[in-house]
């Protein structure tokens, strides 16, 4: 099939970018979305043009690299999928596809569709860890943990750090990401002890880096490829309130 593309091109962080139109013939429904971009890049290289820079790694929904804003939504259409899991079956012959990078002050564009997401690492370095030296891996059953808590912590730990929550949020807030990291640690006995400090420090870093404040809109949850729920944000808020005492 033949599709039209509108892709954000930007040479460097400081240069002025813009949407560029492409027409791509010979796209098959069997392609994944990223294969379609690979195919576009092959044709661009053959024509002697610069290929479109986009980020990808695992191509199986576990690394969180493939951050593309497709037709107005992070990771495109479809619930709980990353861009690499998006197939061209989602599109029809003649469709126009608009591809933009994540838009947030804290995620500056490096080139074309690639943004710098190291702000997330900085938030983690500010508090997303356990400071006790845990030694070698302990015997798994020595600290019993209720199944429901283990499940909830595990669900939170599924967060990829992809940044779709920030991209989807009208406030460019990182609260869903931060709350997933808080829950993943706060629900388990080893992480629980430092919850207050962790919440305070991670929030302070998040603010400093220029992410917005959550106004409980819920767009993050709707677009998160791992189904992280905003009830984690409520837990983060509780931890933050507790940190005042």
């Amino acid at each position, binding site marked *: 099939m033949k599709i039209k593309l509108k892709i954000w091109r930007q040479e460097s962080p400081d240069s002025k970018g813009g949407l560029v139109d492409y027409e791509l013939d010979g796209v098959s429904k069997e392609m994944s979305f990223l294969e379609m971009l690979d195919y576009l890049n092959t044709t661009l290289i053959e024509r002697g043009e610069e290929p479109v820079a986009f980020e990808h790694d695992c191509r199986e929904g576990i690394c969180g690299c493939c951050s593309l804003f497709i037709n107005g939504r992070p990771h495109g259409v479809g619930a709980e999928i990353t861009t690499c899991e998006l197939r061209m079956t989602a599109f029809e012959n003649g469709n126009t596809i608009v591809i933009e990078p994540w838009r947030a002050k804290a995620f500056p564009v490096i080139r074309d569709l690639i943004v710098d997401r190291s702000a997330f690492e900085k938030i983690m370095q500010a508090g997303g860890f356990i400071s006790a030296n845990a030694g070698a891996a302990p015997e798994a059953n020595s600290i019993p943990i209720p199944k429901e808590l283990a499940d909830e912590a595990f669900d939170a730990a599924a967060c990829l750090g992809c940044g779709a929550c920030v991209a989807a949020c009208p406030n460019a807030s990182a609260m869903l990401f931060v709350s997933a990291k808080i829950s993943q640690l706060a629900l388990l006995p080893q992480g629980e002890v430092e919850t207050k400090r962790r919440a305070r420090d991670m929030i302070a870093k998040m603010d400093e880096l220029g992410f917005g404040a959550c106004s409980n809109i819920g767009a993050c949850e709707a677009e998160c490829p791992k189904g992280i729920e905003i009830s984690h944000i409520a837990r983060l808020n509780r931890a*933050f309130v507790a940190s005042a005492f």
Partner: protein
Amino acid sequence: MSTFLGASIGRKLIVAVSGLFLILFLAVHLVVNLTLLAGQETYNMVAHWMGTNPAVSVIQPVLTVGLLVHIGYSAYVSLSNWRARPQPYYWSDPAGGSTWASRNMLLLGGLILAFLVLHISSFSIRVKLGDAPMADIGGVMTKDLYAMVTARFELGWYVLTYVVAMFFLGLHLAHGFHSGIQTLGLSDGTWRNRWVLLGTGYSIVIAAGYMLLPIYFFLRTHSG
């Protein structure tokens, strides 16, 4: 404490607490309004009692401060949120998962504020400055607020503005109620939907309750 209230969540806590306080006040205000239905004498008595009650004179400044804090902090948080996305998307599709009201709280708040200015200037200030008709209740001369209010409710443009403003208020509350609860951390996976339901129900009751009076008095005068 300064790092606490200076943090984004701290500022939102201020918006949430002041907002929830105003939400409660709306219910009290509505109950007072509904005594209009009980007739001229009852309403004037209640109004007179309100005007002379020392508790009311304490609550009034608290309310004013609550309102100003709510407006000030919401505006501040919203403006810093705009700065968090300097470059907008070419195409942004809010898809599922978020309501129109949740994305437009500042706009709704502004519209409600505009109505509030009209409301206060057309009613409260007139009462305060003594520029109101008088009525005789059981031998005591008091301001005939009933006559003032019902006269307003005969004006088509005023009733229409009032009803539209209450519609916006309902939308603002429908998001504000559960949003405030969530910011205070009082929600979880189980309670979330209950809060949303409760908040929606409350907003409908409040909005419909306020709309009822102008519509009722307008129809009563204009239907013969």
